[in-house]
């Protein structure tokens, strides 16, 4: 499905880029304006009564002036997985209540970066400049596959990763835009991953995203095409029937795909900075009404006994159905790990654990 863009801004310096041509062709009929600085696009969003919603319909084609490869911004208080972000674009046209990007980017505005050659130059330098980078993904600052109708970056990335054996590319999505992945020389080095949630949370809080069953069918199709898979239970939202419903999602996953194809499954309970809490309350109230407390990183989190109970239930279900799959917590402390997973990998250990899993499922060299 094509993102519903109302207005297109193109930075003058990238007007002749390949990306600009592709986006213009894909968004024929959408008003487009060339601008000398991004300010006009920012104002288009900031002057609207609800910039968070307005920004999901305004696309700026621009350049990434910083690094394309960035460490995922974890905090020292909780165990981080040492992931690296491929920053290919910003923000997301889907509308998930809890999405951190709503307050992460100022202003919240869809951006795609046209200087993709610079991205590949950075990737080429990976083996020397970034010796510890094993897992990279495009799905942290935007959805990895939501832009497929507009660009061809993903196949280029998949084939670039397919030609090396030191790192994996993770494409994290809530869409089913997988048609462009068929027939690519992926070499097993790309992991297709889906954020999953219960049908109730998807229905109420993931507007514009694909239903669970469609995500799982897409995952099965990707596994069929030889891709590795991953799933992210993030956020796990505590509510009355949450344990049973999340357990059911785990069962649905393993009814659809072979556990041997799954590189990892992450669990992360609902958490948000207070500023995002205000946006959530204003735009779609409900999620902030659980028993939330300020965490050590100043993000609001579900009260620990509540999130441990839910996490333990999901982890147990995964262990029962797929004991060999690497399940891990995104940003949790030692106590939660030990009580729910039965072990704590240590501050540096989680990164190694996931690297090993990538080596096992995707065949990368980690020595």
């Amino acid at each position, binding site marked *: 499905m094509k993102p519903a863009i109302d207005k297109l801004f193109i930075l003058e310096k990238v007007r002749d880029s390949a990306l600009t041509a592709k986006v213009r062709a894909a968004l024929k009929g959408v008003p487009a304006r060339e601008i000398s600085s991004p300010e006009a696009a920012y104002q288009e969003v900031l002057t609207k009564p609800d910039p968070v919603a307005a920004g999901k319909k305004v696309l700026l084609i621009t350049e990434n002036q910083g690094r394309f490869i960035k460490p995922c911004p974890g905090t020292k*208080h909780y165990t981080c997985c040492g992931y690296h972000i491929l920053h290919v674009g910003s923000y997301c046209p889907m509308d998930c209540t809890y999405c951190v990007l709503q307050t992460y980017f100022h202003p919240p505005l869809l951006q795609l970066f046209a200087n993709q050659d610079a991205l590949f130059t950075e990737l080429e330098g990976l083996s020397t400049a970034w010796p510890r980078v094993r897992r990279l993904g495009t799905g942290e600052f935007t959805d990895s596959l939501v832009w497929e109708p507009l660009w061809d970056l993903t196949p280029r990335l998949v084939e670039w990763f397919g030609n090396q054996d030191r790192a994996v590319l993770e494409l994290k999505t809530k869409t089913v835009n997988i048609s462009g992945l068929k027939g690519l020389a992926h070499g097993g080095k790309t992991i297709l991953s889906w954020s999953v949630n219960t049908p109730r949370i998807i229905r109420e809080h993931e507007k514009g995203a694909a239903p669970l069953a469609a995500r799982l069918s897409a995952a099965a199709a990707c596994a069929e095409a030889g891709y590795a898979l991953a799933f992210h239970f993030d956020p796990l939202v505590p509510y009355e029937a949450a344990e049973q419903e999340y357990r059911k999602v785990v069962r649905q996953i393993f009814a659809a795909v072979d556990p041997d194809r799954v590189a990892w499954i992450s669990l992360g309970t609902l958490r948000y900075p207070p500023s995002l809490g205000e946006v959530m309350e204003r735009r779609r*109230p*409900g999620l902030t*009404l659980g*028993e939330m*407390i*300020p*965490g*050590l990183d100043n993000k609001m*989190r579900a*009260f*620990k*006994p*509540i999130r441990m109970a839910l996490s333990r239930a999901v982890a147990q279900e995964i262990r029962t159905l797929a004991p060999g799959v690497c399940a891990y917590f995104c940003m949790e*402390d*030692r*106590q939660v790990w030990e009580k729910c997973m039965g072990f704590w990998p240590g501050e540096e250990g989680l990164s190694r654990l996931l690297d090993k899993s990538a080596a096992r499922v995707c065949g990368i060299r980690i020595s």
Partner: protein
Amino acid sequence: MDLADGAFRLSETPPAEALVSSVRLLGLLSPPLLREREDSRFQILDGFKRVEACRLADMESIPALILDKDASPDFCAMAAVAANASSRPLTLLETSRAIRLLAPDKPWEERREVIRRVLGLEGGEGYVQDIESLSRLPETVQKAVEADAVALPVALRLRDMEDKDAEAVARLFLRLPQSLSRQRQVVDLVAQIGQREGLSPAQVLEDPDIRRAMEEEGDRNAAGAKVRSILYRRRYPVMAEETEKRKQTLSELCLPPRITWHPPPHFEGLTHSLRMDFDSADELSNHLDRLRRLLDHPALKKLLP
């Protein structure tokens, strides 16, 4: 004189007994400001309490200052507000009513100047509108604001509620006065419980335990704390239960005086801390002995699993 005409009334409080006595003894020293209406009856602009005191003192005629019949409504309003504001500091609600009277139909820039010059109030449009809105709140809420039982920021939140809900909250604070931060806490809890349970704030406050706490005679601070605790337990049932359990476990440790245990706030993080106060090496030594013995205490395993 039309005593029922309160178009320019800023204060709802009746005249103090002392004013009535003074009028009885000395007569009216400061005449009220009136205006003759089209129907030839007089309308009070300033001096409602004095006129009422004279009535209570059975005076049949009083001296008065009377504005020209053709004085414009805006001029009368300015005169009424200026007369009040120059004689005493206005309360928040009186200020609100005064703002409502001043140039209500003029553009903001012009109005701001009138408000500044007549009332001496500086501030942006939003601030002035906030104050002005107070006198549109339901009567019980206005009464609570006037009695300082509802603080301005809380009154502004009640403005967003249905009248019956705002009144229910105001009745609670009139009965059990609380500090601003506690008022905020109560309003947050009531609103969140209502949102989660699909109830209006008034319905939340109909909880029998809350009603009982409100009706109890005795220590109102304790009753206020009880209401907050009832609301907290309803809003955060698991957290309240776990906190209670932890309190119980800590009490099982039987820590001696001058040693206090501080678990991680909100159960987040793993670091506990102990504080020891001592005045002598002996006391320190005793503390350390007690702490060493604590290591074998079964309650410690519950606290540090």
